[in-house]
């Protein structure tokens, strides 16, 4: 079973698409919150009115507006819709973030704290007291107690208690953020710092209240398709692990949405592999110490914002998406391109690299559901030239490394390959990355994927 927040997000997307297809979106939008949480219904939050407010903000994001853009609380969704259909390009995400915090949905979790629960038995050996490096724990009235002026939240006591009586409370979004971009403002409201956010989507994926929302471009794509514009869909290789049915069936399904062609981003990955291997060889022969991959856009943002000196070690080879867009434009001059994948950060990269739209797998499937297109009932699409397996494997951690190694395989080199990978970005691996950057950890080829396991586990993957 998908969890409550994933269910609501997907249900809303499907309803949104169905209403668009019926031509009734403008009139339906403001009714959605009530329709989905009628008076007799059980609420998921404190009351149906709270649920309805959150649904409203989710719809705003589906229309492409962030919650932070709201200046007039009484403005109707229909009015946002009318503004949205006037734009000829999706709302900017390069300068303003693709992620936004829904204040109505946010539980404003209290700051992380170590707490002694009622399970404490005031035991004789008192491992909590003896393991505390700051002497913050004492036993008062046969129960352990913490002096918060001394506690550094290291959590040692939580792991030594034989009764599991000490817990560390967390703020999931803040914990998930690898760069400390999420913080509370003076009023206690959660905010994302634009300067620090790398759009990895960790907070989006982890918030149990689903209060971090993604600004969608789905309406822009739906409108362009309806207007009969020439658009090529580029499907990220992570798709294979997400669907019932085959990639070939998925391509047929996607083409039925009205796209003029469907291509594999893995074709671009072939080009990336060839060029990245060549670049690596040149750099090593020129005596450079280290080169890292560049296809994970959140990683590139991370370097740009936090380790700028390291940028010269990041491969300059364009990502598979950029090459796939070139292929699409070569084969269909004048076309627009849409990248479809599991990634939040690709929205930022796309805006910088002239890719017209980005859809998540969830949005793609909502579009299919809205038209009652079944992937497993589709005929297989005759893919003219399927991408090689190594390129399709880019979506898995170490896939890029394997592809580049096999590309290098045929040559005798003067240097020894020392490939390492960072599989998933969190605070610890950011610290590791800095050690690679300063040469304290050895490697000459470093693959970095911000999502643990690779793109297949991206924040907008369908596996959830």
């Amino acid at each position, binding site marked *: *079973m*998908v969890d409550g927040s994933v*269910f609501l997000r*997907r*249900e809303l997307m*499907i*309803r949104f698409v169905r209403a668009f297809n019926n031509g009734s979106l403008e009139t339906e939008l403001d009714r959605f919150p009530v329709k989905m949480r009628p008076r007799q219904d059980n609420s998921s939050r404190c009351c149906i009115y709270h649920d309805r407010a959150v649904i409203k903000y989710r719809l705003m994001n589906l229309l492409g507006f962030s919650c932070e853009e709201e200046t007039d609380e009484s403005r109707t969704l229909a009015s946002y819709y009318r503004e949205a259909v006037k734009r000829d390009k999706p709302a900017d995400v390069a300068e303003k973030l693709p992620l936004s915090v829904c204040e109505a949905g946010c539980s404003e979790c209290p700051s992380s704290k170590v707490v002694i629960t009622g399970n404490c038995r005031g035991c004789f050996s008192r491992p909590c007291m003896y393991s505390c490096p700051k002497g913050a724990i004492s036993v008062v009235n046969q129960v352990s107690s913490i002096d918060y002026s001394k506690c550094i939240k290291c959590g040692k006591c939580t792991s030594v208690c034989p009764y599991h009586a000490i817990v560390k409370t967390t703020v999931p979004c803040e914990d998930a953020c690898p760069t400390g971009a999420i913080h509370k403002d003076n009023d206690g409201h959660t905010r994302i710092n634009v300067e620090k956010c790398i759009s990895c989507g960790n907070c989006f994926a982890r918030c149990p209240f689903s209060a971090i929302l993604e600004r969608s471009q789905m309406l822009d794509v739906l409108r362009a398709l309806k207007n009969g514009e020439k658009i090529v869909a580029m499907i990220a290789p992570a798709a294979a692990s997400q*669907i*019932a*049915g085959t990639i070939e069936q998925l391509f047929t*399904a996607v083409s039925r949405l009205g796209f003029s062609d469907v291509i594999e981003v893995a074709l671009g990955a072939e080009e990336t592999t060839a060029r990245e291997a060549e670049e690596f060889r040149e750099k090593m022969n020129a005596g450079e110490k280290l080169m890292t991959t560049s296809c994970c856009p959140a990683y590139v943002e991370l370097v740009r914002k936090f380790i700028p000196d390291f940028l010269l070690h990041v491969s300059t080879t364009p990502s598979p998406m950029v090459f796939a867009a070139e292929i699409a434009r070569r084969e269909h001059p004048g076309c627009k391109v849409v990248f479809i994948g599991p990634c939040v950060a690709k929205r930022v990269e796309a805006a910088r690299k002239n890719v017209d739209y980005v859809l998540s797998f*969830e949005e793609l*499937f*909502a579009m*299919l*559901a809205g038209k*009652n*297109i*079944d*992937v*497993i*009932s589709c005929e297989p699409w005759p893919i003219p030239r399927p991408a090689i397996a190594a390129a399709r494997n880019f979506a898995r951690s170490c896939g890029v490394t394997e592809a580049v190694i096999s590309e290098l395989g045929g040559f005798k080199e003067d240097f020894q390959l020392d490939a390492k990978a960072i599989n998933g970005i969190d605070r610890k691996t950011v610290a590791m990355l800095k050690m690679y950057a300063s040469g304290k950890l050895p490697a000459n080829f470093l693959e970095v994927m911000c999502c643990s396991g690779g793109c297949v586990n991206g924040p907008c993957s*369908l*596996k959830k």
Partner: protein
Amino acid sequence: MKKMQLEICCGTTCYMLGANRLLNIENEMPSDLRGKTDVRALPCMGLCNEKELSGAPYVKLNGQVIENATAEKIYEKMRALLEE
């Protein structure tokens, strides 16, 4: 004993709203139920359009429709069938 027929709707709507998690159900079943079903993925049964989206995901157990299907719900129905 004849195996029970468990059909999971893999229409796009059901798939997105939870059927994706049910496809592997055979390997996750508790030991008393394991090996007693044939699991099949079905194309859209059209049920999601009838009640808007409120019943997805749908599965059929020996032809009987289960709406808002979860693994637990399926196990419960399976046990009921076994007792009959």
